[in-house]
């Protein structure tokens, strides 16, 4: 997606997560999370089940509303604005507009079941009046080619394999030309032999310069494609560093323990 807008300054943070905390009822799920993601960077979020990875990702696009802290995308505060020196929630439509800047890919694909693959991809750009129907179709065909599924344009989700559905879901998210892509365990629901086709699409995307935050259990992907790894446990960031540092030479006992169990 590089070259579609003004060139960002490589190395500047595009996403800033500041003191984010979140609890469901009495259980505190995220506690004071801080991290930055730079333009073009691929950051992998890893950690045991229930450590709050999905919640963290969902706080970035405000599918969950954090209780404390701020999320900035490209310098813009997400979900709230400052009015008369106080934070106020954005109106639903303003929040929706912010969400168009971030693509999200889910574990269960979540394709619109009553629409064909190409209709899935065209839906948001057309309905949100970003593109005319003709422009959206041209763009959708480019995206289908990018995920290697031009021939499946007219298939319904139920007629596609899990791996194909997830590649369509990636194309659908890309159709809004997002600044950032969020992936929540995109390959966890897939049979082992088709995990590779989805990871390959993601690798190409990363090579094209897309900024990505990826929750994953695929350590080889984190090592080969990820620039940085964040290890979370119990709602806090335990350790963060380059992929090599965290995966090859973890500093904390909990990280070591987790990595030993998963590989």
């Amino acid at each position, binding site marked *: 997606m590089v070259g579609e807008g003004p060139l960002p300054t490589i190395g500047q943070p595009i996403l800033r997560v500041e003191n984010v905390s979140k609890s469901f009822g009495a259980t505190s799920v995220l506690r004071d999370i801080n991290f930055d993601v730079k333009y073009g960077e691929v950051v992998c979020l890893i950690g045991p089940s229930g450590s709050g990875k999905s919640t963290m990702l969902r706080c970035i*696009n405000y*599918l969950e509303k954090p209780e404390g802290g701020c999320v900035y995308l490209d310098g813009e505060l997400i979900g709230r604005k400052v009015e008369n020196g106080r934070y106020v929630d954005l109106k*639903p*439509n303003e929040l*929706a*507009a*912010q*969400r*168009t*800047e*971030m*693509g*999200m890919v*889910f574990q*269960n694909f*979540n*394709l*619109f*079941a*009553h*629409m*064909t693959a190409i209709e899935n991809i065209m*839906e*948001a750009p057309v*309905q*949100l009046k970003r593109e005319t*129907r*003709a422009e959206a*179709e041209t763009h959708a*065909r480019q995206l289908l*080619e990018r*995920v*290697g*599924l*031009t*021939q*499946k*344009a*007219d298939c*319904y*989700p*139920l*007629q596609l*394999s899990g*791996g*194909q559905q997830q*590649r369509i*879901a990636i194309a*659908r*998210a890309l159709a*809004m030309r997002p600044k950032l892509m*969020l992936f929540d365990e995109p390959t966890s629901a897939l049979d082992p032999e*088709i995990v*590779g*086709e989805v990871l*390959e*699409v993601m690798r190409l995307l990363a090579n094209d310069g897309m900024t990505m935050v990826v929750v994953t259990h695929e350590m080889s992907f984190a090592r080969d494609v990820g620039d940085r790894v964040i290890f979370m446990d119990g709602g806090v960031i335990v350790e963060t560093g380059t992929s090599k540092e965290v995966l090859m030479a973890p500093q904390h006992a909990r990280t070591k323990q987790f990595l030993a169990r998963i590989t």
Partner: protein
Amino acid sequence: MVAITFVLVAMLVHLLVTSSSLQWGVVGHYFFSSDVLSGLIRTLYLTAIAMLVGIVGGTILALMRISKSLVLSMAASSYIWLFRGTPLLVQLLFWFNIASFVPRLSLGIPFGPSFVSASTNSLITILAAAVLGLGLNEAAYMAEIVRAGIVSVDPGQGEAALALGMPKRLIFRRIVLPQAMRVIIPPTGNQTIGMLKGTSLVSVISLPELLYSVQLIYARNFETIPLLVVASLWYLIVTTILSIGQHFVEKYFGRGRTRTEVPSVLSRLFRTHRETQLTGSTDHYA
């Protein structure tokens, strides 16, 4: 079993064709008579308007029931409890008597001079009582049908749409409702057919729909059975047409649910630029 069925059907047909009380000549004579046809037309538009009230009201009630507001959801539940828990006949009589209880409906400054007023016992008000009675009762049933349809849609798709930046209303219209329709349509078809026949209940408030129209005729000429056959045949004909329509609507909203289909003609109609050729090698990751 087959033999018994066959014999029974043969006996029934024999009875129908030869029975002296079932005079087919009389049936034929009244089948297209203007009284019967105008009764049929009243039945049809009563069905249509009452279903419209029922579907719109039911959708509003369903949205109230699943809303986060306790007040709204309680209000909807109470409505459904009340209207499902009392007989439709009682409700019809209730609305009819309200109409005759308040002899004049007036529009204007309360207790002041009225600008428009109408007698509540005219046919218009009987019709209003019928539409209110049938429609409000239907809304209670449709509410449950629509709610079941809405909750049947995988919430993950709604989340995906939210993440794409689609506003809630758009998500409801484009993602939730079309899929809920698959669940909503079959029982709604049944409700419509039920409503068609249910309109005959309003004969108790002297609204000359199909049944009351034939009743008026056989009160004069005592050809009771042939005239009931006239009415029944018309109900059967309309029910058959409704069932055929239902079949096609169900097919349209069921799209994407089988593994073998191609986009239907209807959904193709809404798309342009179909001629773009598929080229290049595909599926190179598979």
